[in-house]
């Protein structure tokens, strides 16, 4: 789906991925752990990346990704094969990420927690990242995305970065396409204001 070349239309990529997944899902349903492991390997990068884009934190993204795949394992028997594993994964990832964002908003991290996190992650690694272009890009990207609400951010990320079509985005967000259009429009205009506004990055 996401790993497909950009030339392939979104829905076609989605269908191709679904067809490939069907065999793995059937085997995993029968108790084949190796098949489920392959399924995880196939989708983990997409789930991790989407979660990271939404929450902006690698550790939280990993926690979310683990929970997504554990839920997938629990719901294998009830999974609708017509919709495909990818669409289901996007939906659960977005839901868990939005929940994490809401929790974070209610309980912002204390400075002590930040210190502990830095110690756990390794200050050396942080210093190394700070010198890279990737870290610069993240520093530019984060404040822009933070201006958006959770659903606006999810709509922009899924549509503009993940390349999903409107129908898939609507399914992932659990809303109608007209609502997704509203999120997209507001999100893109907010990002524009964040870039040009006084609080925006240079």
């Amino acid at each position: 789906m996401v790993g497909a070349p950009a030339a392939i239309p979104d829905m076609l990529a989605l269908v191709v991925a679904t067809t490939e997944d069907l065999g793995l899902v059937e085997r995993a349903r029968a108790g084949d752990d190796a098949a489920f492991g392959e399924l995880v390997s196939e989708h983990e990068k997409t789930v991790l990346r989407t979660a990271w884009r939404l929450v902006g934190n690698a550790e939280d993204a990993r926690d979310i990704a683990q929970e997504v795949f554990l839920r997938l394992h629990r719901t294998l028997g009830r999974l609708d094969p017509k919709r495909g594993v990818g669409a289901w994964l996007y939906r659960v990832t977005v839901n868990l990420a939005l929940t994490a964002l809401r929790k974070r908003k209610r309980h912002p991290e204390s400075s002590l927690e930040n210190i502990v996190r830095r110690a756990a992650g390794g200050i050396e690694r942080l210093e190394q990242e700070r010198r890279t272009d990737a870290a610069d890009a993240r520093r530019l990207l984060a404040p822009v995305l933070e201006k958006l609400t959770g659903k606006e951010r999810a709509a922009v990320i899924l549509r503009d970065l993940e390349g999903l079509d409107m129908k898939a985005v609507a399914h992932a967000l659990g809303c109608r396409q007209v609502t997704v259009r509203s999120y997209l429009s507001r999100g893109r205009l907010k990002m524009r204001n964040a870039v040009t506004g006084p609080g925006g990055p240079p």
Partner: protein
Amino acid sequence: MNCVRWQRLVALYVGDDLDRSRTAGVEQHLSTCPSCRDLEHDLRSDRLHLQDLDAAAAGGLELGSVRGAVMAKIVNRRKRSLMFSQPRLLSALAMVVVVIALALVMRQSTGPDAPRTVSRQSPSPASGVPVVPEQRDIPLPQPTPDFVPPIPNSTDTRLTRAETSLSALSTSSPPPAPAEPMTIKILTDDPEVVIYWIVDPKGDKEYV
């Protein structure tokens, strides 16, 4: 339509998120509105810039793999569920059976339906009010030492709840002595002569 409303549509237009009719309307507006045209240009460049930034940010990020952790958790969960479903379930069932059996035994010995060991004696004809047949020489009945007078009615409204429970507790003990004196009516040959024998059970007093 003012430019604010057009801006919302332009924000969707840059991502090909409008249907054909609206797309045509936006294109027509853009051809006549320079500010909206500037906005369209900025939004397109923002979108490209966002994708570049995201690619650069994700490129240097080590998110690692979650496959190992997920599979380990699944195996652990399965082990836990097996442990619970096999021996623990059996031991739990055995415990339930034992508890039910104990409860049944306890109920049989102390339950409300259990037969009471009440030695309440109903008055025998000999100890009740004897009706002496018409005979000339009537031996007066002698009260027997083991005479048990009738127990007062347990539904006596004068008894309080506490008294009732006390009487229930003391049912296994010998019945208490009657509070009222016992009267024995003795008939004689002469219908006009009737002997009433009043016995005070508390004492030895007798009145004839």
